[in-house]
């Protein structure tokens, strides 16, 4: 089983290069090879997920393991939390790639698209699996540089401008992260996350690490687009081709932003009250401001991009509350609820935001516009798109049978249990605002009959596109099963335990 871990990175990397070289020579090579790669990765993820349970796997690169209790090589760690992220990445990657079959045919240089797509997957798998701080930074840049190129893939005016903005802010974020990694190395003389934890437990100079933590929040906040650092996100996510928007919004900002923040602040740093307060309030601010900015948008994909900021705010706020409750120490049940709700909402957001961006892509594919005012009456012309997007919209705004309702409910219940009444109220209010702007999207895109007469020639999208949307819509319903206690005990509980018992991560790797 341990030998499977490097394959998660090696397989997409190799296929990226093969597609780049052979895609030009063999006709149609990329169309078969790229989905095959993702299918293999998905199968591997499911095998690992089924066999993992609550334990963790690790792999030492080149066999350079522990030397007198000190890790000398690069470690790769697969535990219950990272396997959930692997599931999201590879599942959504496969669905978005399947969707691209018809969507990407209108662009030239198709093989480059598939090659970059494999690179993005390789980078994200690497970030999630890496147990080494600098190695994590390198994989982060691999996925992010591939996404710079994919945002600019249309080479129109807006795409290039969005990509330029994204790159400047992204490389500024990388500098801050690199500085923080350097400062950590200066004090601890090690880069292994588990080993750094051991050093921190022996002695901890708080003011120094508060500075490092602020640098890391700014750096990864720029990648995750939490609110003061969000300026690039609406441009980049709305200009990219739609399957890529689904990947960026659904997976990338979680894998390289939220996941790393959570991993480092739970399993590496010692909890501190001030930083937990900063995380919670940043989450709450992005939740509120993101939704307020979304409601005034008329560009469909910009609306969805702003709503991503708002939903990521929910996730960050839940984890921040979890740290605050753990520090308080008298209410562990509420902490479990908050952290579990955060993980659950993260999975749900990947599914329904992926679905909504694919819907937006279908509308754009047929109508060549993203402006809500130019749409209307599409519910009869495009029944599959209409139904699936209705399910996605209801799911994201928290209407009962869908998954979004349960994860938001868990977060709100955790907030009330932990006596964060203001945050609970804000979460409810933002949920109502979310419902408002998704009803606006539904009304103007699908039901507004008055503009619909000119659109009578519109047909439903081809099979690969409609199939991917149906799969994701079914997942929106199916994931609400995770709210049943016995199911969540099986799937979410191991991941919660990894974060709750924050020492466990380092002790299992160093082996003390």
């Amino acid at each position, binding site marked *: 089983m341990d030998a499977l871990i490097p394959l998660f990175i090696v397989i997409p990397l190799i296929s990226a290069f093969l597609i780049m070289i052979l895609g030009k020579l063999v006709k149609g090579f990329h169309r078969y090879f790229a989905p095959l790669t993702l299918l293999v990765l998905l199968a591997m993820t499911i095998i690992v997920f089924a066999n993992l349970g609550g334990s963790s796997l690790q792999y030492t690169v080149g066999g350079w393991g522990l030397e007198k209790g000190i890790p000398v090589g690069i470690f790769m760690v697969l535990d219950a939390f990272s396997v959930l992220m692997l599931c999201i990445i590879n599942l959504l990657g496969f669905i978005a790639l399947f969707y691209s079959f018809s969507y990407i045919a209108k662009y030239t240089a198709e093989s480059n698209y598939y090659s970059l797509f494999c690179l993005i997957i390789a980078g994200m798998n690497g970030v999630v699996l890496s147990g080494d701080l*600098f190695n994590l930074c*390198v994989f982060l*840049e691999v996925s992010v*540089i591939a996404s*710079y*190129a994919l945002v*600019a893939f249309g*080479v*129109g*005016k*807006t795409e*290039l*401008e*969005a*990509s*330029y*903005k994204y*790159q*400047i802010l*992204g*490389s*500024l974020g*990388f*500098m801050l992260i*690199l*500085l923080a*990694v*350097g400062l950590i*190395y*200066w004090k601890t003389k090690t*880069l292994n996350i588990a080993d750094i934890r051991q050093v921190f437990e022996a002695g901890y100079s708080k003011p120094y690490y508060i500075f490092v933590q602020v640098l890391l929040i700014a750096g990864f906040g720029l990648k995750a687009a939490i609110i003061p650092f969000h300026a690039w996100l*609406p*441009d980049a996510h709305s*200009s990219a081709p739609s399957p890529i928007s689904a990947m960026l919004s659904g997976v990338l900002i979680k894998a390289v932003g939220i996941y790393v923040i959570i991993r480092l602040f739970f399993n590496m740093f010692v909890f501190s009250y001030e930083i937990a307060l900063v995380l919670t309030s940043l989450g709450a601010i992005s939740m509120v401001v993101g939704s307020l900015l979304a409601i*005034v*948008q008329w560009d469909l994909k*910009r609306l969805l991009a702003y709503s991503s900021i708002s939903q990521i705010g929910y996730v960050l706020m839940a984890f921040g509350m979890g740290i605050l409750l753990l520090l308080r120490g008298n209410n562990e049940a509420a902490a479990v609820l908050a952290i579990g709700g955060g993980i659950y909402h993260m999975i749900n957001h990947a599914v329904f935001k992926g679905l909504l961006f694919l819907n937006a892509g279908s509308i754009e594919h047929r109508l060549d516009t993203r402006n809500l005012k130019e749409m209307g009456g599409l519910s009869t012309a495009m029944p599959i798109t209409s139904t699936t997007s209705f399910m996605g919209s209801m799911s994201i705004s928290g209407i009962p049978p869908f998954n979004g309702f349960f994860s938001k409910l868990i977060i709100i219940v955790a907030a009330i249990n932990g006596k964060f009444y203001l945050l609970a109220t804000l979460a409810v209010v933002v949920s109502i605002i979310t419902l408002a702007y998704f009803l606006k999207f539904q009304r103007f895109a699908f039901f507004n009959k008055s503009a619909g007469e000119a659109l009578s020639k519109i047909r439903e999208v081809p099979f690969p596109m409609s199939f991917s949307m149906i799969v994701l819509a079914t997942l929106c319903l199916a994931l609400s099963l995770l709210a049943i206690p016995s199911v969540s005990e099986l799937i979410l509980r191991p991941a919660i335990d990894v974060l709750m018992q924050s020492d466990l991560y380092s002790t299992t790797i160093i082996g003390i």
Partner: protein
Amino acid sequence: MTVYLLCFVLFLVGLYGLITRRNLIKIIISKSITEFSVFLILVLIGYIDQGLAPIVDPGTSHQVYVDPLPQAMVLTAIVIGLATTAMLMAIAIRLYRKYKTFDIREIKNLRG
């Protein structure tokens, strides 16, 4: 101490350029300056006074070596910086072809 302060000054110079310049190419240059100041700090972290390159030779009695790990990190980071700069330059050239200008005040399709 002076060296660290000079690195910090270099960082501020780059940041100032990043904020105030209006030319696409000059922004990229400012980004590179900021990046190099971070690289310099990383190299300084591994530097030990009077240290030699860490090649252990049994014949000599010298015992102080500099830390090689930050140097490896900086080499990797320089390569990453090269990749982002090349990407940015390519995008800037494409932008110039579309807009016929390098001035960011004229390139503002995306707002709101």
